């Protein structure tokens, strides 16, 4: 199971740099969430990785294969990836079984029987056994979501891409599917890139999170890292319910704001410098 490396990727739409010198590493078997507000370039990044877009600068590597560079782009169908779309993108003219079996047709050495067995097994895993003959239009939103998951996982992709897969579900179902996706990830262990704008979702589901801002990575780390040690005001405000106080360092471990002095745990501030102090709600309770 290879990892993914993005090196200084850039892609512009007109004058707008959707992705602007973005570098990132997804470790083998890791689930990394790309988190950011709308317009930060996360979906563009995902579509670059999938090969639907060609980068204007930078490279995308999977293991020892260079898949994208300005000079050449391996087409999506030869990337050994799978993707789960925000809209699910189930084919309305195919049954559930046909939808799920589609990707297996391009795997050499699988007999018809093998394919059917794998489809059945995968539908069992996503708890849709018995739905083989239904059409997508006959399923509920949650069931459609499971079909989309099954269709992507059944091909045993090297890399799994998810584009806001839960944003069309209602709140209860969304909660349930977070754990479902995490469970499936732990079962199959695909290297996974998960795009979302919901920080709660990113924290529950992922091993690590990359926070994106204006086409660049603002900070990468575990949920804990980002929550407790945000490196910029943007990350602090985006990740947690937090109060950010502007102030001046008056000592190595003390910040002054008006006539309030606050002691901080990190004790290497340069006295006299302007600092922003993030007070997370959890910290404040302790």
């Amino acid at each position, binding site marked *: 199971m290879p990892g993914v490396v993005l090196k200084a990727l850039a892609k512009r739409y007109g004058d707008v740099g959707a992705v602007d010198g973005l570098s990132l590493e997804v470790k083998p078997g890791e689930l990394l969430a790309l988190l950011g507000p709308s317009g930060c370039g996360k979906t563009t990044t995902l579509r670059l990785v*999938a*090969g*639907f877009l060609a980068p204007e600068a930078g490279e995308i590597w999977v293991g020892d294969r260079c898949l994208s560079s300005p000079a050449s782009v391996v*087409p*999506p*169908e*030869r*990337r050994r*990836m*799978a*993707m789960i*779309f*925000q*809209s699910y*993108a*189930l*084919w*309305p*003219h195919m049954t559930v079984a046909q939808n799920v079996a*589609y*990707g297996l*047709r*391009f*795997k050499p050495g699988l007999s018809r029987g093998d394919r059917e067995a794998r489809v059945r097994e995968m539908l069992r895993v996503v708890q849709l056994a018995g739905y083989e003959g239904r*059409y997508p*239009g*006959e399923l509920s939103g949650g069931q459609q979501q499971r079909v989309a998951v099954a*269709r*992507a996982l059944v*091909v045993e992709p090297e890399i799994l*891409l998810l584009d806001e897969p839960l944003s069309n579900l209602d709140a209860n179902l969304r909660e349930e599917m977070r754990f479902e996706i995490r469970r499936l990830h732990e079962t199959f262990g695909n290297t996974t890139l998960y795009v979302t704008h919901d920080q709660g979702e990113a924290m529950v589901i992922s091993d690590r999170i990359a926070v994106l801002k204006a086409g660049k990575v603002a900070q990468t780390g575990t949920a804990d890292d980002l929550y407790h040690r945000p490196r910029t005001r943007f990350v602090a405000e985006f990740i947690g319910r937090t109060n950010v106080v502007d102030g001046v360092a008056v000592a190595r471990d003390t910040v002054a704001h008006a006539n309030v002095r606050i002691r901080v745990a990190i004790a290497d501030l340069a006295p006299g410098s302007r600092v922003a102090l993030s007070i997370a709600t959890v910290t404040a309770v302790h």
Partner: protein
Amino acid sequence: MDRSIPVWVGAALALIVLMALPLGWLAWLSVSGEHGTTLTHYRDVFTDPALRRALWNTVVLAFWVGLVSVAIGAPLAWLTARTDVPRPGLIRGLVLASFVTPPFLGAFAWVMLAGPNAGVLNTFWRSATGAREPLLNIFTMPGLIFIVSIYTFPYVYIMVANTLALIASDLEEAAAILGAGRLAVARTVTLPMVLPALASGFILAVLQALALFGSPAILALPAGFHTVTTQIWSLFQFPPKVEQAAAFSIPLLLATALLLQVQKRLLGRRGYAAVGGKGGQRRTIPLGRWRWPALGACLAVMSCAIFLPYGVLAKAAFSRAWAQPLTRDNLTLGNFTFTFFDYGSTRAAIVNTLELGVMTACIGAAMVAVLSYVTNRKLVIGHQVVAFLALAPVVVPGVVLAVGLFIAYTRPPFVLYGTLWILFLAYLTKEMPVGYAQADATFRAIPADLEDAGRILGAGRLRILREITGPLAKSGIIAAWCFIFIGVIRELSASILLFTPNTKVMSVVIFDLKEEGQFGAISVLGLVMLGLTFATVALVQAALGRDVLGARR
């Protein structure tokens, strides 16, 4: 972007053959004299009192047709979209029938219904009242306006009904809860929101009336007056005055382009967030004791457009003398044998029509499918231009297109006059916008995600087209095929200038038969044409109805 080159070259060539060459020649010939460029033709055209009268008649006709179409179409649309009028499905079906009825057939039928001497309605009136004067005379300007309007109002109906169906009742209720009475709600909310659709329907109706040839030729010429289209046609009669016809075509072309521009602005301005918004329900307005009278009024209108004309055509097709009562002695199949076996050009014309219909529909559907796919998926640079070009022929009235094609293809390097090819080009150009709009809507409804999902799982571009896009687009493209086919088999205004004795089509033969007074044969051919049209409409409904429902349920 190397893969865009063939598409570009293809589109450019198609554009040149279909549009630039004919319109270029048209413009050139309208200003060319024996010694270089000249404006004499324009001066001739606009100082000749007869031609000026024709111009004025067209203005009067188009304006009134627009008004009458709004007066009929808007209430009908409101009744079916917003009230509990009984049988709304039947009314919609009848409006559709009126929409696809070739207007010149309707005009023929109304000659038999309301001709001043033998018209069925007038005979009935005389025998019922003992009056000597006819009740109705269809060979008048009001008669012409009436006939054109009953087949043009569906344009207004469609615009208004679709808009009304999209305005959520919330918007009206929001006004009501703030204290607006029923009338105030209608005046301040509903009407302003429908107004652009109403105005744009009016303009579409005006455009139809401007470009129409058949009905004026049948009703205005016997009444002794011309419109622009019949005038252009008569300039083409021997000895042809092609330059004057060209000069006379230009104003019609400009008027059409201008009106379409106005319509586009009307619809384009003010982003109606409410229109098309999700959620909001549409509640029907109870008509109470007016329900059945309302249905009666709708059926009265539709009897003018459908029941009476179809009835008189059927009667005439099966009787020896169409003006006489349908008794045993009068009943005959002779019109059918005459039409199909005795009359020289009918069978050839039917074959020509079907050949042209199928050929234009197949090539046209293939073209619009490729063009709209390319523009929807943004596969080439400048795809907006491709879309614009595909829709551009909409500004060219049939007669004007025919004048241009005639000039362009009666001279080297392309001598096509006298062959079916020139008709094919005319039809392809004329029907391109309709087909493109349909194909465009089809691909718009297929999200690119569905294709991407297949790509990422390992399917190549062509396989995706075959297995995913193709099956999903099939019904929409079949519908485009049908729209083009229906347009071709009823086409008269371009055919009438481009046919030669060997290349007659059904509509032209109907026109010839009228000169000979063969009403029985006209009715037979008319019924054949209606049969073909309705069979095709049924095919569209089957194609769209089943698949669309299956896909979106």
